[in-house]
Every structure is written in structure tokens, then in C-alpha cells.
């Protein structure tokens, strides 16, 4: 079953008052995305915080599928909420520094929870993210972007990506496109 079908199944079970029927689809979804979410969190957070933040993201992302909001594709939604929770984490720490200096302004660090940060990230991480997006946009052809999707961002080998792309694309072409893309990305970052 697709993510969306699993969510629909859970909604129906919940509406029918059969909460035990939600266990299996929930287990499939949480287990299925847990490691990727935790690994992404580890890229930006201290290891001890990564699982907690990923847990909060999973809970609020899946729960929001039940509060009347349209969440679109679940995988994208999970990762969007993860990024918000990570941004919240840093917002909290920034406030801690400010409230140490200005105790009268202290309002509770966790007020940012479930609130949308104004900026997803600041500083180096935001700059790097924008650089990667720019390098991707600068690719001249759709087929090159597709090669990056399949080989650099995706799970395929260069040979498999070339075969999937067809149109005369070779393994060497895919390597060349990927190398140029990563070189450009590093130039933008430098």
C-alpha cells in the first residue's frame, strides 16, 4: 500500500472507533521513515537530540493528517516538518542566549513548537542549501537534472541511471554530469 493509502486506512479505522487497526499501518510508516529522518537530523543536531527531534517530527506530521489539514505527499510532509522542528531547536537555543541577557523577555523556550519559523535555516546551512539548489537549477538540460536525481540524490549507480535515462546516455556521461554538478556546487559554496 502507498503512504497515502495507509493514512486513509488509519483515518477510516479511527473514525470507526477501531484504534487497534491503526497499529499496523502506523508501524509501517514510522519504521519506514524513521532511519532517514534520524539520519537527516544527525546532520544538523547533536546526536543525543536527533532521535527526539525526529520523534517529534513524526508525531506532529502524522497527527496533522488527522486534524483536517491536507498534507499532500506524506514523505515530503514528514521531511518538511523535520526541518521545521530542527529550525525550532535552534530558535529555542537562540532565545536561551537572548533570555540569559534579557531575563524579562523570557517566554518559554518551547513556545516555538508547532509554529512555523520565519526562516527554515540561517547561516552556513541555509547558504549551502541555496547553493545546492542553484547548482541544480543551472544544469542546462532536463536530462542532466534527471541524471542528478537518479545518481547523486537517488539510489542508482551511474550505469543504472544511464540505462534508465536512455537516449544514448552512457555511464561515463552520468559520471561527467555528476562531477560537473558537484564541482559547481563547491564553487558556489567556497
Amino acid at each position: 500500500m502507498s503512504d497515502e493509502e495507509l493514512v486513509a486506512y488509519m483515518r477510516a479505522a479511527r473514525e470507526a472507533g477501531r484504534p487497534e487497526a491503526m497499529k499496523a499501518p502506523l508501524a509501517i510508516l514510522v519504521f519506514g521513515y524513521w532511519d532517514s529522518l534520524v539520519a537527516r537530523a544527525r546532520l544538523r543536531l547533536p546526536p543525543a537530540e536527533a532521535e527526539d527531534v525526529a520523534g517529534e517530527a513524526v508525531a506532529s506530521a502524522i497527527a496533522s493528517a488527522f486534524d483536517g489539514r491536507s498534507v499532500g505527499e506524506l514523505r515530503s510532509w514528514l521531511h518538511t516538518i523535520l526541518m521545521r522542528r530542527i529550525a525550532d531547536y535552534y530558535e529555542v537555543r537562540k532565545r536561551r542566549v537572548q533570555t540569559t541577557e534579557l531575563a524579562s523577555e523570557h517566554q518559554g523556550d518551547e513556545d516555538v513548537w508547532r509554529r512555523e519559523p520565519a526562516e527554515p535555516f540561517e547561516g552556513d546551512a541555509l547558504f549551502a542549501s541555496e547553493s545546492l539548489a542553484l547548482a541544480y537549477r543551472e544544469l542546462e538540460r532536463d536530462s542532466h537534472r534527471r541524471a542528478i536525481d537518479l545518481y547523486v540524490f537517488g539510489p542508482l549507480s551511474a550505469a543504472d541511471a544511464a540505462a534508465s535515462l536512455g537516449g544514448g546516455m552512457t555511464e561515463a556521461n552520468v559520471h561527467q554530469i555528476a562531477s560537473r554538478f558537484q564541482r559547481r556546487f563547491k564553487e558556489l559554496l567556497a
Partner: protein
Amino acid sequence: MTDLERLLSEYKQAHRASPDADPAPYLAQLAGAEREALSQLIDAYLARAPRRDFDPAAFPASPAASAAEGLQRSLAGTGGLWPALLPRLRTQARLRRSELVSELAARLGAQSRQEKVARYYHEMEQGLLPAAGVSDAVLDALGRIVGWSSDALRRAGELPAPGGPGAAGSPGAVFTRTATPPRGGGAESRDTAQRGEPAEEEWDEVDRLFRGR
């Protein structure tokens, strides 16, 4: 192949073999802009990673199991995300439940009714206590113990109850303010019976704090 390309390729290979592969050892091999570039590329890869196939043998020992369990209780219960959130906050605060309850009772001025406070707090963690009935005083005291604001705790409890608005068990149906102890065969009495609480027990300040917001 550059170090960046090699490390990205090695990480992807490790992730395919074992989805809980930690990116840190790969990042540690680079510094500065190269390291940030690798971090972004791994991040982009993980954001597109498909859902991992369910493994019934690995699931029970996975941290995902407790996350799924808390979420299931949240979706099945009437306390919003509290079942998914409160145990984690308690763990982060390094408090056993008995310690948290003791401090909560003290902050509420209900030391002599600690057993009842414990029962209600247990229901909050299990998603059995409708969030709408829990007073700001309780959430404020709890928030001070675990390091969250009462507003944030309130928002976490706001997931609509199963069955949609107006259904039995929804906050509006259950938590009309009552000046007297609930008696008879109404929803409150059924809740009481499910908790094993003596029906004749007097409605007191602790009940009002947890059920009569």
C-alpha cells in the same frame, strides 16, 4: 573521483545496506566547505529516500516502535499528542514518573492527594484524559517541571478526538464545566468507571484541575 564523490557514494552504499547508517563518520573525513557540501548532498539523498520495507523482526527493538506506540495512543485517545510527547519530555527531564508526580502534586498544592494526581498524570500520558478538561494551572506546573510552556503543552493536546467534532468523547461533549460531582449514567460516569475510581468519591480540587478546566 574526488573525496566528496567517493564519500557520498560510500555513504549511500552503507545506507542501502543498513538504513540506520550514521553519516557522521563520513562527514568527519572532510573539513570546511567540502564537509558542508557532503552534508548537503547526503541530506538531499535522505530526503528522497523511499520508505524502508517493514521488517517485523527488527521493528520491536527499533526506536521507531516506541514512537509508533506513543503516536497510536495519541490517535486513539483524547489527549492529542500528549502520549507521544509527555513520556519523552519526562525522559529528557531525567525524572521517573513518581518523581514528576510528586513535584506536580506539590506545585498544585495537592500533596495529600498525590495518588489522584498520579492517576490523572498517567491518563495524560496514555491519552485517556481529554486535553480540553485539563486546567492551565496543571499545564503551567507540568511545563515548569519538564521545561515547556503551558501554551505549547496545550497546543500539543489539540488533536481532534476520534469520530470528529461533536462525537462522544470529544472535548466539547465530555468537558462541559460542572459545579457538582458527575453522577448517573453520563459520559463522565463511564470515564470514572473505566478508571476504576469509586463512583461515590467526592469531586475535589484535583478533579477540577484535571477534568473541569
